[in-house]
């Protein structure tokens, strides 16, 4: 229901106003971030003024969210996409997805966010959806240090289905609201270490309060968008579809 209302809003103005990103979003912590710059790449900025850029901009990027069960992957996505939070736990069956439309620097852009099941028994299904991801979000529970250790394994599995170096990796600690600031700092230190190992960008969020959720997804959208634009500009040919993703659903 709410999504429908969103849709209407999105259509009267091309993209919902709260999905318009004009300034390049900043990192969470400089100790673990993928890019230090706080402005658009010059070529991308100039290309955005060009109508032809829309061709590249209509491309959709695939985001895959992985991590242990009960760390809050679905909650994170629901907080951002539907702005709601359900306290009760419901295991995700296999996979689910959401589509989010953005406008970056005046160009429409779409993220396809795949929510995977954290339960071991669904892994064989969920893993078939890892392919063709441009962004891999590995999620752990800030309150459960074991889930942080498992992120390595999750990332490895997700990367196995993708070309090395073709993905942005994020490491997300959830349930920040459950921790005191001291505990949080301690856990974040560990997480930053692991993020550096994984060459990932670290964020600490709370889906319950919504803290940093929007900022985080904006950052994801901006990085993915810029990367797509640069690839399109380098490739010269307009990117319309990714061949891997089109066959994925039929394979699944």
């Amino acid at each position: 229901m709410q999504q429908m209302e969103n849709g209407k809003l999105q259509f009267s103005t091309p993209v919902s106003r709260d999905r318009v990103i004009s300034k390049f979003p900043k990192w969470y912590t400089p100790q673990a971030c993928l890019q230090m710059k706080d402005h658009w790449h010059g070529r991308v900025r100039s290309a955005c003024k060009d109508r032809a850029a829309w061709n590249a901009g209509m491309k959709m990027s695939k985001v895959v969210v992985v991590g242990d069960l009960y760390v809050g992957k679905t909650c994170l996505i629901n907080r951002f996409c539907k702005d709601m939070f359900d306290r009760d736990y419901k295991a995700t069956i296999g996979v689910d997805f959401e589509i989010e439309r953005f406008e970056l620097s005046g160009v429409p852009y779409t993220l396809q966010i795949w929510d995977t099941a954290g339960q071991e028994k669904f892994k064989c299904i969920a893993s078939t959806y890892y392919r063709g991801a441009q962004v891999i979000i590995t999620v752990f529970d800030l309150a459960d240090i074991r889930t942080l250790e498992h992120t390595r394994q999750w990332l490895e599995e997700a990367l196995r289905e993708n070309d090395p170096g073709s993905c942005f990796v994020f490491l997300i600690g959830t349930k920040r609201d459950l921790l005191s600031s001291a505990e949080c700092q301690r856990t974040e230190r560990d997480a930053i270490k692991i993020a550096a190992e994984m060459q990932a960008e670290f964020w600490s969020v709370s889906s319950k309060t919504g803290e940093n959720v929007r900022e985080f997804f904006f950052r994801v959208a901006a990085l993915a968008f810029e990367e797509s634009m640069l690839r399109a500009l380098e490739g010269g040919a307009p990117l319309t579809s990714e061949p891997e993703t089109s066959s994925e659903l039929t394979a699944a």
Partner: protein
Amino acid sequence: MEDFGSALEKNAAELTVMDVYDIAAVVGQEFERIIDQYGCEALARLMPKVVRVLEIVEVLVSRNNISPETEELRLELDRLRLERMDRLEKEKKHQKELELVEDVWRGEAQDLLSQIAQLQAENKNLLTNLSLNDCPVTEEELQRQEGVSERERQVMKKLKEVVDKQRDEIRAKDRELTLRNDDVEALQQQQNRLMKINHDLRHKMAVVEAQGKALIQQKVELEAVAQAREQELGQLHQEVTRLRDRLRGEPAHNEEEPAPAPPQLSHAETSDAQSSVWAECGNDPEFLAECFEVGESLSLFPGLEDGEHAEKGEDYCDEDGDEEEEEEEAVLLWGACEEDPAGERGALDLKDPNRPRFTLQELRDVLHERNELKAKVFMLQEEIAYYKSEEQEEEMGTPPSMPSPVPRSNIQPESGIKRLIFTAIMPMVAAGLIADDPTLQPIRRLVSFV
């Protein structure tokens, strides 16, 4: 003798004394002759008288030319007379010349007069003209006029340049205009094409909807059949267990309860499953229904080749370890039992309402179907929103939107359909959420236009 005669012929005034003697001689000769003829007596009386006349003449003549001076004077007089005559003649000539000159002069004067008259008339004309122009003609102005003409020439030159430039500009504009016209025409054609595509798409959508409905109908029928089958199977199973019990003989006779368990599976349990297994699939009742239906029907159909498959599955629950190789494909759904503390997972219990029922492939199919449906819902929502926003726009302030679609599309380069394609359809196709069927080919072509 001649001399005498000449003296007689002389003018009286010119006669000299000598001439008189000559005349007397002549007369005496004449007398001698007469005496010879007639004697002296005839002349006796005449003689003295003649002599007397001659003497008078002599005196008179001698009195006339008193001296040579007089002669000179007379000559002088004659000369003077001649001179006078000459002068008179000259005077006459002069007079004539003068008259001639006068005549010429008069003619000239006449000419000049006429010229003057002409000029005066002209002057008058000019004056009237001037008065018409209302500006007194002065020398300064004449000079200025010369300057003006110079300036005029320059201005003319400049004007000509300007005209040339403008002509070139007009030509360029003309060319541009034709180009624009071509563009407009191309856009119109494109729009027509798009409208046609839209129409086709809507038609196709309607067809697909109808097909969907037909499929649902079919599914319901199949489900009914499946249910009947399941009941039948349940009965059969009951019979089998009963037979088995009987075969085991009387020693195990005391236990009669497990026998009726399988038949209970048929209906009460499935409804039970509905509330537990699928409860976690979200509060979306449609999705729940969809999944449940699919799950139930599919759990029977993959084994249609050997109708025993369902039974086999249940057997497998009993014999567990025996069919290791089957476990791969039959990873079973545990549903909520894992979270449910009551659902302790031991051996697969037939009585357990949450026991696994679906194969991995079935779950994959269900998920795939769900994803496709979700993508379709998203697309339809986008379209509905688009039409709603269009309605709103029409209500807001542009009532004549349909009668003049061409200028409207020109004003708004981003037409709704294009936006729709860009924001909704193409990304889905790109992501493989919508099958890339040939009906989308026109849209692809359109994208390459923009």
